[in-house]
């Protein structure tokens, strides 16, 4: 029973990471851009959702606002700053997008203050439900799993079945060539960046609802999202999906099971402390193992130039 609940927790955590990593891997894959400011867009979504939900009283309006605000912020940032970075090397990109983190953080602090914001669930989504087998599980975590699955399907459809998807895939393969074929590269990049930003914003709003909406909330998730992208293979949505679920499961089950396993060999207090420390490095061990076996990531393109 406990194991089933922990597995669901791992699945939900993985879905949340996927929402974050999907946008990151799109931008990384299509534009070759390392975007450290992805976490800032996640924060933007959470704050937009909290502000609109507080003003209008509707969580759903807030959720819509998070998508719109993050996409708008993404498009604006792409046109104002990011566009000048494609031709530069990765170090310049890291510096510039790191600067964006600081700008977003301090800007948000100006607007909303230093104290965490209140964002809570509508009554229809709060509380726990009984699952088959007698397991009580929070309804909203199931909703997050649903959102993650829907976004995964939607992205697959977008990339595999639409004209925009063809262009995105073409852009990943050879950006000079599709430019020469008459595709407006600048617009394509803005759209992809805004799409990635919107996904980050949605993740921020969903996660902010059950965690806390505060300045700096994006950076810890950003690191995990990069781990997911690296494990899954740069630029691969499928890789991001599998990678996110792997990381989510490893982290949750590691935290849940390790202290118990270790307590057979050590005393309780030592096992707790050691287990907690080991669990927190487990996902990086996973990353290292994947990189040793498949340096390009699970679903990365063979012999990618990056």
């Amino acid at each position, binding site marked *: *029973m*406990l194991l089933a*609940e*922990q597995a669901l*927790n791992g699945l*939900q*955590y993985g879905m*949340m990471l996927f929402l974050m990593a999907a946008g990151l891997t799109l931008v990384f894959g299509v534009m070759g851009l390392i975007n450290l400011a992805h976490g800032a867009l996640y924060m933007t979504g959470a704050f937009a959702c909290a502000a609109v939900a507080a003003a209008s009283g509707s969580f759903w309006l807030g959720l819509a606002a998070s998508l719109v605000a993050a996409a708008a912020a993404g498009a604006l940032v792409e046109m104002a700053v990011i566009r000048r970075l494609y031709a530069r090397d990765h170090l310049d990109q890291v510096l510039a997008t790191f600067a964006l983190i*600081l700008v977003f*953080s*301090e800007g948000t*602090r100006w607007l909303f203050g*230093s*104290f*965490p*914001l*209140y964002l*809570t*669930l509508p009554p229809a989504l*709060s*509380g*726990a439900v009984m699952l088959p087998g007698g397991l*009580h599980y*929070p*309804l*909203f*975590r199931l909703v997050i799993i649903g959102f993650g699955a829907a976004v995964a399907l939607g992205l697959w459809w977008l990339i595999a079945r639409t004209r925009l998807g063809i262009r995105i895939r073409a852009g990943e393969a050879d950006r000079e060539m599709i430019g020469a074929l008459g595709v407006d590269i600048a617009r394509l990049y803005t759209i992809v960046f805004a799409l990635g930003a919107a996904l980050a914003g949605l993740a921020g709003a969903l*996660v902010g*609802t*059950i*965690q*806390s*909406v*505060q*300045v*700096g*909330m994006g950076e*810890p998730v950003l690191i995990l999202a990069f781990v997911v992208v690296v494990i899954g293979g740069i630029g691969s949505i499928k890789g991001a999906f599998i990678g996110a679920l792997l990381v989510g499961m490893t982290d*949750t089950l590691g*935290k*849940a099971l390790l*202290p118990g396993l270790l307590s057979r060999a050590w005393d*309780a*207090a030592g096992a*707790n*402390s050691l*287990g*907690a*420390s080991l*669990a*927190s490095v487990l996902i990086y061990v996973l990353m290292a193992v994947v990189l040793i076996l498949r340096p390009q990531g699970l679903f990365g393109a063979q012999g990618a130039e990056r």
Partner: protein
Amino acid sequence: MKLNRLLIGAAAAAAIALAGATQAEPVKVGMITTLSGGGAGLGVDTRDGFLLALKNAGEAGQAVELVIEDDQQKPDVAVQIADKMIQSEQVDVLTGIVWSNLAMAVVPAAVAQGKFYLSTNAAPSQLAGAGCDPKYFSVSYQNDNLHEAAGAHATEAGIGKVFIMAPNYPAGHDSLAGFKRYYKGALAGEIHTQVGQTDYAAEIAQIRASDADAVFFFLPGGMGIAFMKQYAESGVGKPVIGPGFSFSQDVLPAVGDAALGVRNTAQWSKDLENEANRAFVETFQAEYGRLPSLYAAQAYDTANLLLSAAAKADPGDADAFRAALAQADFPSVRGKFRFGPNQHPIQDYYVREVVKEGEVLTNRIIGPAMTDHGDAYAGQCKM
């Protein structure tokens, strides 16, 4: 590098110099606190509480010249700022650090260079015991204290089995040690979470599966907000107790109604009945438009302690200044306040309950937890 700097009283000091007044040199104070990033709410309240005390003191407040800088909650940045304040700004007193790991990086070096350090919050066990120093005063508490009070309360309330949880870092270990020191019942489980962790689904599942009667947790700032919201959603429903940090005024609005009715322990509450506290709460609300937190109250007391000492002695005369500080001759918002032999407070701790006043969530005292309580490390302090 962003620098949040404020020079308060500089203008006043200049005016005095121009007038050729005979008043003594102002005490130069360097405040290092967290004004950006996730922990900024705590530092902002520390700064605002300190500034309010100087303002409320009127003329006397000009005895302090304050320099404020942001440590970004990073130990290396805090150390850089401390070096700069000591070497180029030549401050007499340092104060303001919120986090224990930053305090451990700054305090020992600062007192070794002959500067006074007055803690507005962090008070790790290392600095209360063998590492105590004549120039180091904790005006807040010793790290274990609020948790000890929670343990005493759990014993008092006759809770049979408690599940305990804190982050895996020094202040977290102090917390669980403090709770266990005064809790006489059995433990249903013990978890060390990651610092900065925001998802507690795995921990909540373990709490659900355990036979605990109640849950004790120490998760300051955003960690506590996340845990409380997720715990309320999970429908586990076992009662929760915690130290005052987890339900301080800076996080309550974000936690929302999930916190209602929760018992927590602290050495201060906004409804404490005394003259100094009434004036503090009233002027804080008037000045900043919000209720003060624990951190603001501690900083307010620190500033008043400093002013009381500055009126009696000059920091240049270290022994006299130290003696003046040790008297704790100031009107504390906690009512009674004195220092123990290791220069940490001996004070009362209260059990508070989260209530709603109108639309605002806040705390109200429901009874004493510990009276005239010092700390477990004073015996190891040799000075």
